[in-house]
């Protein structure tokens, strides 16, 4: 990847595989988290609106396992935001600052995502395409790195 001048004409890869592998390695030691990769790949078919906010749903759960899953979804959204930022596209709530209890902010973010699809449909489609490919990569690395449940950290054989 060219790093000299960001504005130079040329090819700028998203490095999706690299990002996906790092995400999978980061979350592989938490119980049952990596199976979320497949759910993410399913969710993108329904659009960005559904994808964003899944981490909030997990936030309200009490179980540690669910909270870990929420962190995984949040990390994916953040990485997507970073990748898109490189190409000058702004993703709503890219730093996932919105909290589950903040109804106003949730409303605002949802509106921002809907607005994106209406006012800058190209950006919306690009974001969705990149997210789809990122999820494909997550599924690939999940299939390679996912541990069998009984070997999860903190449990004895």
């Amino acid at each position, binding site marked *: 990847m060219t790093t000299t001048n960001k*504005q*130079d*004409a*040329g*090819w*700028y*890869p*998203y490095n*999706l595989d690299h990002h996906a592998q790092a995400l999978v390695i980061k979350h592989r030691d938490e119980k049952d988290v990596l199976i979320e990769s497949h759910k993410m790949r399913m969710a993108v078919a329904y659009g960005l609106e559904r994808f964003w906010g899944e981490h909030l749903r997990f936030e309200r759960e009490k179980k540690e396992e669910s909270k870990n899953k929420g962190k995984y979804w949040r990390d994916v959204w953040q990485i997507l935001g970073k990748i898109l930022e490189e*190409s*000058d596209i702004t993703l709503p709530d890219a730093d996932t600052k919105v909290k589950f209890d903040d109804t106003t902010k949730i409303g605002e973010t949802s509106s921002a995502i809907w607005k994106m699809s209406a006012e800058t449909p*190209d950006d919306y*489609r*690009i974001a*969705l*395409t*990149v997210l789809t*490919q990122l999820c494909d990569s997550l599924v690939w690395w999940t299939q390679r790195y996912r541990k069998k449940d009984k070997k999860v950290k903190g449990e004895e054989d």
Partner: protein
Amino acid sequence: MYKKAYGIIETLAPLHVGASAGEESGNLNLIFRDQFTQTGIIPGSSIRGRFRADMRQDLRQKNEGYKDYNYWYGQEAPEKGEAAENKKDTTEALVKFEYASIVWLPVYCPNQPVVWVSCPRLLKRYQKLSGKTPYTFTPHTYYGAKDNLTKLFFNLGFIRLDSSDKKLGDYIPDNLENLQSGRDLVLIVSDTEISMIHDMALYRQSRVALDANEKKAKGGAFFNVEALPEGTILTFPTAIKNKGKDDNSWQEYIVDADIEKTKELYFGGLESIGFGRTNVTLYEGLN
């Protein structure tokens, strides 16, 4: 010595010319590729084979004892014992074919949704075959209806564009079904990038043959296939051996082969399930 011509092939369906299913156990049914750009080609033998087979099926040929057919493509070797009869010895084919390489390749682009991509090396081959004016193609230049584009996005990355270049329009063949100069977007990438973009552009599928009685894959009958996508534009050189001073052999060949206009021809494998349909146009006589 030779009269040269060139052809343009536009794919109207996915095109698979390469290793076919079942011929190897590795399940890799890759298309043939050019050694240096790593982009899809149709070998000269496949083009020749299709032209030859089509001429053989022409009824006029049958009625005349395959006279023209043997004349253009060469007389087959006589079987044992036949030589004594009036069957002649082998003869050289008069018409020659070389491989077809890509001129423009359509790629999915989320903000377009299609952009036809090429690289300097591939366009230079087309320029030489077609006799068009030599031109220095600059990577990341583009041409289409819009000329204020700054970025093009693909599945795996994006391209920050250099300037718009109207000259590229001269290197888009006329009368294609899918691609039209000035209307559709074309893009030059560098010779080192084309192989990666090509891999993003290919039509890929997992295919399976089902068991006759159960809805499951027949043993081993599961394979992945790749093909050039619909709307790919390729070019190939062809030549005819000169016979004498006032040689008009191209005109004769074109009449015998019944290819005066653009003709629909099938190439490659998986033809019976919808692959391989193309439009072929011959542009004759550069010298």
